[in-house]
């Protein structure tokens, strides 16, 4: 199965292990991520202002180019890219006037965007197209005895119209982890905000948010947290340095992308290069569980 794929900037930088592990894991499922050509920034955050189309331009340009390349869908790994691309698409697709304006802006692209490209998050594809049963059948190294907390953050479940699962009680990541043989534990803060970009301006906000999320997961018994957002992953992982210095009762726990765990379970293994992109050492836990 070929999956037309939009990576986004961070998957080519600090989260390259997210992409790398996805490619490896999907190969074991006979799926190939086929990266679209000439992609640009997704726009990162979906603009909430009604009166400024310029802010949607970057997203739509990707859709236009995908359409030009004959693609009718894009699979996205990064939660933020997914959210932004999908909402931008809907923002203009049903509004002819807006669509025309946006196309006028992008006259250099030579063709017009017609609105035929659908956006899917990889998790949805795994659930609906590949199915968790198939994945379960292909597990080579079950993640037995690994206690994991699925962290959704904001972008996979909000706004509710764009939630990839029930927005108050999603289980899609837990279901995947169960298929991989792990034990997933519910924890109170799994839908909370990690502090997002406040890390740049008001680090105390992100420190507190991330601390509370990790504490909630730890208290529920989670040995690691699993996410699909590079921004959440950064905050939850790299802020543990300062959290550890500030909080007395704190124990560090590793933060994984769900694809890293898929790679291990499906027999595609672990790469030491990935470890370098983590702050909290993931290998110790994996070794303890005999998964390395």
């Amino acid at each position: 199965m070929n999956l037309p794929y939009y990576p986004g900037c961070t998957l080519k930088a600090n989260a390259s292990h997210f992409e790398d592990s996805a490619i490896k894991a999907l190969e074991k499922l006979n799926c190939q991520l086929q990266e679209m050509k000439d992609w640009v920034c997704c726009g990162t955050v979906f603009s909430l202002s009604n009166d400024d189309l310029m802010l949607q331009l970057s997203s739509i340009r990707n859709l236009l180019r995908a359409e030009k390349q004959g693609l009718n869908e894009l699979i996205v790994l990064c939660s933020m890219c997914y959210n932004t691309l999908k909402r931008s698409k809907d923002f203009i697709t049903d509004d002819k006037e807006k669509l025309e304006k946006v196309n006028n802006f992008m006259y250099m692209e030579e063709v017009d965007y017609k609105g035929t490209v659908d956006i899917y998050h990889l998790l949805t594809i795994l659930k609906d197209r590949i199915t968790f049963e198939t994945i379960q059948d292909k597990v080579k190294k079950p993640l037995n005895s690994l206690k994991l907390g699925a962290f959704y953050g904001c972008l996979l479940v909000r706004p509710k119209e764009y939630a990839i699962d029930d927005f108050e009680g999603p289980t899609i990541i837990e279901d995947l982890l169960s298929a991989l043989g792990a034990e997933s534990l519910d924890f109170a803060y799994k839908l909370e905000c990690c502090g997002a970009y406040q890390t740049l301006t008001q680090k105390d906000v992100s420190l507190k948010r991330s601390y509370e999320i990790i504490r909630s997961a730890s208290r529920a018994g989670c040995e690691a947290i699993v996410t699909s957002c590079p921004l959440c992953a950064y905050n939850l992982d790299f802020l543990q340095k300062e959290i550890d210095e500030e909080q007395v009762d704190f124990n560090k726990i590793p933060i994984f992308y769900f694809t890293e765990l898929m790679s291990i379970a499906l027999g595609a293994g672990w790469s030491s290069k990935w470890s370098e992109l983590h702050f909290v050492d993931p290998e110790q836990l994996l070794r303890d569980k005999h998964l390395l």
Partner: protein
Amino acid sequence: MFRGIIKNGIRNELLLKVEEISGQNVFNCYQCGNCSSGCPVVEYMDITPNQVLRLSQYGASEEILDSETIWVCSTCLQCSSRCPKGIDVARIMEAYRTINLRSGIGKINPRKIDVSAANDIPPILLVSAMRKLTG
């Protein structure tokens, strides 16, 4: 003459602008407080989300423009997803931010970002902050 909170008339120009940018009717709010209840960063705000709605109804939008609140809001959409009246509170926050940004008032100055530190942080963080907090 009004005394107290109402200064520039109820639906003044600023509120009309907020309504236009956000597409929201602030008069839908009946002050249940759910937005503030669920807000993960309400403790860092000088004006709470429910107060943003209240002040907007009074046309006291200037106070909101000067607040810390609109910059602390990280658009997690918790308020919007649970509002019993379907108000997209995050859009109202964005509208106030946008009005500031369009008049050149931003939270961070891209030129003053420490480039050496920027190497360690992921692009997603840098770009999203710039998108939300600079004009």
